[in-house]
Structures are given as C-alpha cells and as structure tokens.
C-alpha cells in the first residue's frame, strides 16, 4: 500500500516522464503531493528499478488471503428479521454494541447488495419460500447466520406452522444459540464467520469451477 502523505523530492519528480507530472507541478494543483499514478509510472523507468520509498509500502501476500481479508471486514448483512431476535439484531447495530466495529454495519434491505443473511427469528412455513427467494437473489459469495433457537431448529415451536430450522432450505454457516441471543452472541457469531471466511480459498474454487466447465 503506497503512502501518499510523503512528498517526493523535487529532483525525483522532475525525472518522471508522466504527462500528469506537469499538472502536479502547476501552482494550481491543490495538493502538496503528486497524484498517485506517478508512483507506479516510475516503476518501468530503469532509474527507478529500486525505489527505497516504495519498498517500505509493499506487502507480499496471496491473492486469496487479500480477497478474504477484504471480504471478512466488509460483510454487508441482509437483516432477515422475523421475530424477537430482530430486536437483538437491531441492538447489535446500535451504539452500545456497535456492529460497525466488525465492518458489518451496512444493513442492506436489498438482497442484491448483501453478503451475509442473518436469519433472525421464527421462520414460518408461510415465510419459508420468501426467505429462500431472497437468499437466491443474493449474489455470490454469500453466507448465512442462523440467529437464535427458532432459525436454527424451530426452537420452542414444534408446531404445524414453523419450519424446523432454516438449514432445511439454506446452507447455514454459523448457528447462534439463545432465545433470543444477546447482541454479544451475535457479534461472536460474526467473528466466527470472519474466521471461517479467512480460511476459504476463494480464487481456487473459482479456478476449479472454471476448469470443470471446460472439461
């Protein structure tokens, strides 16, 4: 990651053959540092093969790890609030528990923009196919948290009207016990999901699917 706060020395800026460098040298340019393209366009120059300033800002990693790191810290939940668990879900999103500390504060009520569906509450048979349809509308990659006893197993509703666990319709990644769970339990489940995402091989899976589609 490049550090843009460091102003380059004048002589190094003059040696750059980037047309934008003239912009950065103009007195009207509002920032005290050149646009970030200049840092990368110095790389092909023979004189800039080794740049000690750039070197300290380079991280070497696997693409999978980088992608997973970005995914797990920006999980946008689809709040599938169906019963009292949704109250605890709202509490987890509010100031005291602050789910934003884990990057999951952007509750999206559109499944198209969501990453993780938090099924919070009793899934009745009347609602079950609607939940499944919303899940189907979420783009990959997507995860599912079954929050509370009802979403995990039907809970105390061993009844003609209640689906006995959302895992009968969706693949669930994390089950959270409680009736309803405390917001801390939801945050713990979220951290468990983050840990699970860290171990995923996102690109390898795509590669395998691609290869299988050819063969």
């Amino acid at each position, binding site marked *: 990651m490049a550090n843009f706060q460091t102003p380059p020395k004048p002589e190094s800026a003059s040696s750059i053959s980037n047309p934008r460098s003239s912009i950065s040298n103009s007195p009207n340019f509002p920032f005290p540092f050149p646009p970030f393209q200049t840092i990368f366009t110095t790389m092909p120059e023979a004189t800039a093969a080794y740049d000690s300033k750039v070197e300290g800002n380079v991280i070497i990693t696997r693409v999978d790890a980088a992608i997973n790191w970005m995914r797990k810290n920006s999980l946008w939940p689809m709040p599938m609030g169906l019963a009292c668990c949704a109250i605890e879900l709202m509490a987890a999103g509010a100031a005291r528990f602050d789910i934003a500390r884990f990057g999951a504060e952007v509750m999206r009520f559109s499944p198209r923009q969501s990453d993780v569906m938090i099924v919070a509450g009793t899934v009745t048979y*009347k609602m079950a*196919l609607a939940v499944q349809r919303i899940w189907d509308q979420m783009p990959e990659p997507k995860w599912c948290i079954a929050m509370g006893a009802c979403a995990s197993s*039907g809970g105390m509703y*061993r009844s*003609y*009207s209640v689906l*006995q666990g959302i895992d*009968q319709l969706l693949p669930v990644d994390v089950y959270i016990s409680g009736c309803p769970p405390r917001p801390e339990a939801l945050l713990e489940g979220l951290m468990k999901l983050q840990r699970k995402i860290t171990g995923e091989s996102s690109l390898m899976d795509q590669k395998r699917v691609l290869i299988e589609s050819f063969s």
Partner: protein
Amino acid sequence: MALPETITALEGKFQVLHKTDFRGETALTVRREDIVEICRFCKDSLGFDFLLDIASVDNFGDEPRFEMVYELSKVLANEHLRLKFSVSEDEPSVPTISEIWPTANWHEREIYDMMGITFTGHPDLRRILMWEGYPYYPLRKDFPLGGKPSDVPQVAFTKAAPLEGGPFVTTATTATTKDREPRARRMDE
C-alpha cells in the same frame, strides 16, 4: 356482567335455549338461525357497541361437534354478554355478522382458517393465517400439533415436525381438558 333487563329483553324477543351464570358472566345459548337478528337487536336496541371476540370450540367426540361463542360488550356501561350456539360437523356453516360489526370479518376468517367453519354471506371468506390451498384445519382436535405434510408449489410447504407423537401432543378425547391439552405424553398410552 349483563344487566337483568338485557336478559329479559332478549328472552322476550328470541328463543333462549339455555342460560348460565358463572361468576357474574352471563352466557345465553341461542338458535343458530337467530344469531344475525340477535346481534342486530343487541347493537341497535340494547346498545352493545363492541364485538369483543368470536370464538369457536371443538368438542371433539360430541355431537354437535362445534360451538360458536360471541362476546358482546357495552364499552361505557361495562356490560358484557356471551352468546353461544352449537354447529354440527355435517353442516359447519354459520350466517355471518360482518354486516353488523365489521370486525367480525377477520374473526370469521380466522375461524374458517383454523376450524373449517364457513360463514354464509361473508364478503371475503379467505384463509387469514395459513395460505390458500393448505388442506387442513389446524385447530381441530384431531389435527396433530406437529402438523402434516403438504405442498402448494411456489407458495408454501409443510412437513410434520419431529417427535410427532412424542412429547407435547394434543389427544382427541372428550375427557377433561387435562387429558386432551398439549402436554408431554406418549400417544400409545
């Protein structure tokens, strides 16, 4: 409780089959075909301005099987009147009173949904809790608490809940409430 003049007025105008007083609550058993006229009389002439509830009871094993219960109230006078009549399983049909109290519309839809009693003259007799096409009436005593499998494609499906026949089941019996209410018991007992 119902005032004595209310009871007298009703007894003078309609046929009252049975009258019970229990802890200040008066319940009148009337004829099914009179229920619309009785409700209209109670509202227009006796001043019962509020229909609290309509309930249906499944006395499974008895004949007639079902019983309808209407709870009428006079809000400012704090007067309460209960009307009852029986409905046989062979003809589970009751005239609607949704023209008199609009709130009866949804009460009667719920009874139709849960107990399978139809209401003649009802403007919109659809299921209210379960979905259209669900084949059972879940509050009937011979319906298992865990449910039965069903499927309406693209709408909803049901499965029988696990441990059906195990703990917490209702039993179809005419014995005491304790014997038939949902509680932990085995069905083969």
